[in-house]
């Protein structure tokens, strides 16, 4: 901290400060700024290096779990070359399968030239988007709460609440086509919001720590879901002995963009829209100003006359409705047979939302990118399992590694000898608990 020696406060009054002085800067200045930011280790650079490091370390796991490679190494004494080449081809095959399954497969282009389908070129991306949609939404649910200083572990329970409402309206109530979708979406958001409200209200009134409350609610809601799905006068599909709800009506399914699941549907636009709304809310609205103030310094917020408690309640309402919306995008994805709510529907969307928010540095734009990355890993993972001898679980390892490195910027700095002191801005997030 210092007195800035050459004060430039003498700027003529009334002239707003130039927001982006770099816009006028030349290309070389841009170039040196990029190099500077790499050397200093800006958050974006750190995140990119974390992903790279995860891929490198992931390669070790691929090698270590691929039976073909292991066998080649058994005979390394006779054929060392074969062992090395098996190692290389295993890693290369796994990563190219990952890439081809999630982003782009060169073979589809060749096929398109020979009369194949052009849509097939976009199939991997479409799958990535399908998986990314709910992750972006649960990621936003965690991120927006985090910006107000709350560690929302409860996207899972908020997701379940939304899913229950969506399944009920979607399967057991008949409504006119368009209305049915809207009712399901709004209902799911309301369900999630109620769950979020419980968390916010408990914290505001009793000071209960939101981490404890949300973890417990996750358990409660998972059990409630099981109960509802096994009671035939409640959600259980008539005549079914299993824990399963009736199929969502076709007129409640979101329109497809790509094709039947697992391909992109309208829900992705909901996710993008939600990210845009949250971005606007945080940066341009009084409500978002309150969120950020309460998150950054609750006692200053109090001194400035804000109600910290009602801010908590409001942000949890929003977070919950986002997680509920995520459930709607999963259940309303259509296809044949149409989705049915089962105990495994919520999957790990809630918890993956935490990692997505972490990777996206709790910023809406970042969450979208992180959601797409995780969606891509998911989409590519299926391909890895199908095309190579590497187990699909490698994708989970990669996800874990990425998050691990993102959460430990000092480690990345040390590995790549970066200067600077800025972290990824999420050290507190990673610490989480005491907040």
């Amino acid at each position, binding site marked *: 901290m210092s*007195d800035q020696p050459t004060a430039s406060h003498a700027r003529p009054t009334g002239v707003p400060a130039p927001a982006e002085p770099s816009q006028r800067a030349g290309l070389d200045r841009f170039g040196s700024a990029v190099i500077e930011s790499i050397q200093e280790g800006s958050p974006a650079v750190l995140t990119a290096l974390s992903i790279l490091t995860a891929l490198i370390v992931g390669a070790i796991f691929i090698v270590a779990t691929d039976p073909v490679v292991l066998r080649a190494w058994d005979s390394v004494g006779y054929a060392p070359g074969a062992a090395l080449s098996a190692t290389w081809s295993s890693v290369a095959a796994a990563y190219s399968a990952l890439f081809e399954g999630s982003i782009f497969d060169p073979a589809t282009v060749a096929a398109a030239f020979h009369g194949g389908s052009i849509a097939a070129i976009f199939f991997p991306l479409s799958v990535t988007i399908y998986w990314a949609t709910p992750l972006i939404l649960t990621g936003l649910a965690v991120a927006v709460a985090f910006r107000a200083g709350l560690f929302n572990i409860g996207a899972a329970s908020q997701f379940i609440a939304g899913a229950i409402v969506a399944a009920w309206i979607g399967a057991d109530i008949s409504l006119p086509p368009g209305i049915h979708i809207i009712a399901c979406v709004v209902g799911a958001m309301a369900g999630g919001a109620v769950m979020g409200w419980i968390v916010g209200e408990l914290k505001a009134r009793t000071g209960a720590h939101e981490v404890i409350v949300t973890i417990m609610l996750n358990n409660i809601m998972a059990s409630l879901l099981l109960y509802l799905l096994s009671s035939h006068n409640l959600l259980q599909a008539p005549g079914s002995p299993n824990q399963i709800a009736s199929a969502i009506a076709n007129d409640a399914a979101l329109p497809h963009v790509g094709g039947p699941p697992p391909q992109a549907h309208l829900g992705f636009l909901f996710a993008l829209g939600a990210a845009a709304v949250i971005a606007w809310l945080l940066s*341009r609205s009084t409500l978002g100003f309150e969120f950020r103030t309460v998150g950054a*310094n609750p006692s200053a917020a109090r001194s400035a006359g804000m109600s910290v408690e009602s801010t908590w309640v409001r942000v949890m309402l929003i977070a919950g409705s986002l997680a509920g919306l995520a459930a709607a995008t999963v259940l309303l994805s259509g296809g044949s047979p149409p989705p049915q709510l089962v105990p495994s529907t919520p999957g790990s969307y809630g918890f993956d939302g935490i990692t997505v928010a972490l990777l996206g540095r709790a910023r809406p734009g970042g969450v979208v990118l992180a959601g797409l990355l995780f969606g891509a890993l998911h989409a590519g993972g299926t391909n890895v399992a199908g095309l190579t001898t590497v187990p699909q679980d490698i994708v989970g390892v990669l996800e874990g590694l990425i998050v691990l490195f993102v959460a430990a910027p000092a480690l990345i700095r040390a590995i790549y000898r970066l200067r600077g002191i800025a972290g990824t801005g999420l050290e507190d997030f990673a610490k989480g608990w005491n907040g």
Partner: protein
Amino acid sequence: MKLELRGITKRFGSLVANDQIDLVVEPGEIRALLGENGAGKTTLMNVLYGLVQPDEGQILLDDVPVTIRSPRDAIAARIGMVHQHFMLVPVLSVAENVSLGMERTGPLGLLDRNSTRRDVRELSERFGLKVDPDAYVEELPVGVQQRVEIIKALMRDASVLVLDEPTAVLTPNETEDLFRIMRELREGGRSIIFISHKLNEVRQIADAITVIRRGKVVGERPPTASNSELAALMVGRGVLLRVEKATAIPGDVVLDVADLAVRGERGERSVRGVSFQVRAGEILGIAGVQGNGQTELCQALMGLRPSTGSVRLNGRDLSHASTRDRLRAGIGYVPEDRQADGLVSDFSIAENLVLDVYDRPPYARGLRLSLDAIRETATQRVADYDVRTTSISTRAGTLSGGNQQKVVVARETGREVNLLLASQPTRGLDVGSIEFVHKQIVALRDNGAAVVVVSSELDEIYALSDRIAVMYEGQIVGFCLPDIPEQELGVLMAGGGTTHADGDEHPIAGEPAPPARAEFEERS
């Protein structure tokens, strides 16, 4: 031991915190390092203590160059440091704190508490540092905690002792005690580097004064130098040491507090039935040693802490109003701890300038923030209040303390206020910023606002107050005029008036009460 710093240079990015600094401290000398906040005093001492590595320069001890890479090296070189913020473990006893890092063990590797305890006792006797080795640090007053820090350094055989702003947290009497201890240490041949920005103290205790400005040594003066000479060196221009203000012309009662009682953090009775009035165009200074209920009083006045009794602003009952309603009713609030309560350090200057008006026009329309209006106001305020920054989008946390406080003051006085409640408004600020903040407060008074200034700095109380209320143990133990001698005010602040006042207030403002004064003289 003779300490010499030669050509110390330290850069942080483009900022030169220390620029070719030379400093010699002879054995048995108290050397004051005087400079504004951000002048580079603390950086220099961090270099000496091994917390920061210099880019250039040398450290010599008894003319032998030494390399100090860590505090461990510094301790081994017999350099001791008492930080501004104490490095003590509150739940441990004095002896345990002192032995941390150099625990002595007896047979079987058990802690040998007795020898440490004995050593603490011996040291405290030798240097007149009264401390009970078995007391728990959290129960000790700040002044005594500081002694524990000094003992810690002495136990490690320090012969050069660095005291970083040691008086910032002390009462006048504790400061006197500290000075006595410093003199004892000097008699014992130890060298002391005393960092401060308080002119009077520096002149009182130092053998020689080195003045630093913007990272450079700008002069050395003997303690006989005048205040104005030192101040001019420090800030690079002449400074008003007294606020120029006309006699107050008090108007109607603006703030009327009756029988206010507040409980503190741990449920203790922090404020025990306080009543006072402040009129328009008047500054009431609330003097007192920190921790006598002033903090809780301010919080209660702002609705940040539940209280009983009544608070009226221009006749309107605000006793149960929310903080927001009180701000809206026209109270400006400069909190005691600007970092914790006054600012959001991650926010830009512009955002901080609207922290309590962000949801009103012209800054917001409905839910939408009007970024243009916010930016325009920020640019205006930054210029008007002389906030030294390159841009209104600079993070407030990167500003110096003085500039941070200017942001808070700009926000709280920039809008229409009937009452300004300023708690420790210039704590930790340099002379230039103090002058500026004081001028703003007086200007507000001259515009007809009522002002309450809570301060533990006597200079500030004297400079600003039109009337002084003294708080001790949650009560106002007396009102007086700013012509009361410092000693008498000191006695009041130390509770010397309690048996006399005994819970009742003595509104002696307007007529300095001779009987009370006589009584104090008898006591002292």
